[in-house]
């Protein structure tokens, strides 16, 4: 059964207990379950018969005890310096750089050192590449990941 949020009613299908690393329903004893044990971005979460496998195991990390995100230094997983502005330089002969035109589409243009629309940073919190000029926007594949173009779009940390 799929999991989603819904207005609070306190019906049995909204009541869960956290026990031994499982989040189980008070009536059915079915547990939060990552569908297909798929450890991928955006994998769906269901409830399923308690199997005690890794895809049903969870750890509660209280926000006030969670590790703080790094604010500087090199992130090995993503390959960027954190919060350090950079240009994205094409290796084509003219070595143009990527620019966010009007806070929207990404194109290559000749380097202009004072134009922050050509500068990007990698943000360790959202895990996205943000534009310096349009700082609430991140590099995004259009069409929710299905389009051909690249643009900057309001940061949402979806996989695209």
């Amino acid at each position, binding site marked *: 059964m799929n999991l989603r949020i819904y207005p609070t009613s306190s019906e049995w299908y909204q009541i869960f207990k956290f026990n031994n690393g499982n989040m189980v329903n008070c009536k059915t004893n079915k547990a939060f379950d990552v569908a297909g044990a798929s*450890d991928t971005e955006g994998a769906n979460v269901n409830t399923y018969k308690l199997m005690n496998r890794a895809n049903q195991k969870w750890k509660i990390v209280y926000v006030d005890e969670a590790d703080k995100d790094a604010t500087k230094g090199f992130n090995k997983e993503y390959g960027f310096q954190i919060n350090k502005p950079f240009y994205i330089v094409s290796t084509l002969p003219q070595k143009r750089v990527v620019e966010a035109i009007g806070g929207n589409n990404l194109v290559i243009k000749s380097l202009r050192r004072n134009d922050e629309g050509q500068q990007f940073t990698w943000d360790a919190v959202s895990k996205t590449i943000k534009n310096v000029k349009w700082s609430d926007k991140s590099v995004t594949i259009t069409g929710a990941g299905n389009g051909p173009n690249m643009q900057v779009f309001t940061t949402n940390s979806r996989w695209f």
Partner: protein
Amino acid sequence: MDNENRQCIRTAEAAKSANEWDILYVSDAKPEQTKGFSKEFGMHIDRPFFLSSGLPSGRYLDLIGDNIAIKTPNGFKTQQWSFDMKSRTIKSVGKSG
């Protein structure tokens, strides 16, 4: 049967324990726990938390629209949850619904 949402009926035939009742005046009722750890539910009350998957990447429970999925920690409050003792439910911090 002692089940949540069980219908109450009028009958003379029911087992004795099923048709006996106590009156508990509201003023005499034990106050509800409003903070700290709930042993019954296994969560701290009104203390925001992430729910980290036991799969190797340890992604967090998150919302995509109203649907629940796992995603890389991203700083959005849609990854934060809080146990509400009054309703006995787990509420989204980032999105009321």
